[in-house]
């Protein structure tokens, strides 16, 4: 059974890895590792480095759909198999750079106090002063673009090859459309991101 190899793979990877930085959140509230079968729980001991991302994503996500799965709730999805990482980086970088340019142009056109666009480490931050702040970033292990909106809260967009857009699985919302609607409404002037 595939799951039997998981703890060994873990241990091997952990022994190979140098300790990069201590994880301050590992106190009594820290969890045993997720996704391991019932009777083989791997508990991290004192100095535990984060496991190799590639290995972990493939191990944890089962590609088997559950019959009880609803589209609206959390679901176990094998992300790496949906989109190769290079492809993901290319698509998401392009999208985020597009948004960066459009937001910068928009800022020049409108008058909003404390309008500010920040970009660093692949994280795009759009500050609209007292109207709120948007944060758009890549979540590579999930092959997603994550959005934090002062209007609609957090959402996670997957690449939809059919429509060539980023779509939030649970609400079917389109990233550009959502941003256009919300930002246009907040700032009182329409914006075109597509």
């Amino acid at each position, binding site marked *: 059974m595939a799951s039997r190899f998981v703890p060994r793979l873990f241990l091997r990877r952990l022994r190979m890895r140098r300790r990069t930085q201590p994880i*301050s*959140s590992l106190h009594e509230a820290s*969890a045993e590792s997720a*996704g391991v079968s019932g009777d083989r729980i791997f508990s991290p001991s004192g100095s535990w480095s984060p496991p190799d991302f590639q290995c972990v994503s493939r191990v944890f996500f089962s590609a088997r759909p559950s019959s009880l799965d609803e589209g609206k709730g959390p679901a*176990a999805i094998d992300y790496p198999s949906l989109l190769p990482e290079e492809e993901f980086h290319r698509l998401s970088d392009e999208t985020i750079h597009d948004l960066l340019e459009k937001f910068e142009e928009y800022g020049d056109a409108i008058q909003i106090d404390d309008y500010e666009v920040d970009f660093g*480490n692949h994280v795009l931050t759009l500050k609209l002063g007292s109207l709120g702040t948007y944060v758009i970033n890549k979540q590579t292990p999930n092959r997603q673009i994550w959005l934090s909106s002062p209007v609609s*809260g*957090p959402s996670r967009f997957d690449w939809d090859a059919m429509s060539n857009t980023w779509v939030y699985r649970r609400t079917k919302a389109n990233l550009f459309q959502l941003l256009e609607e919300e930002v246009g409404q907040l700032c009182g002037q329409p914006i075109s991101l597509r």
Partner: protein
Amino acid sequence: MLRAAGRRILGLGSGHRAPAAAVASRGYHERVVDHYDNPRNVGSFDKNDPTVGTGLVGAPACGDVMKLQIKVDDATGKIVDACFKTFGCGSAIASSSVATEWVKGKHMEEVLSIKNTEIAKHLSLPPVKLHCSMLAEDAIKAAVKDYESKKAKPAAANAETAQTEKVASA
């Protein structure tokens, strides 16, 4: 990557010097610090217990894993106890801690309406940490779903959960 930067900067209890990073440094709200220093309901129930629902969400690769468990009174459908274990940033720990507090004493149907925005507002989470509250909401839903699936197919579900644990995080 974002979360790692956040954790490094806000290295609570570890005395770290934070390097300058893309994330602006800001303090955690006192409620978050409170949940971090005095976590409520940390622990584990026996997941093979038929009255226990286990929600496991997130992935180490993303920097957040939450396990939230509920103990349900079969007769009334009320959640009599809840516990959690979370690997992640202070906001993630606080969000799941708050989630366990809020589900206790409520009916299962009722807790499904707990929204991530409420958790985020309660903890005054900054924009970049809203995703933690969403994960906590997902953990609650996953726990309820797990309990209901166990109740629906007791024998089959128990055998299945012993073999495989799927982590939900979409």
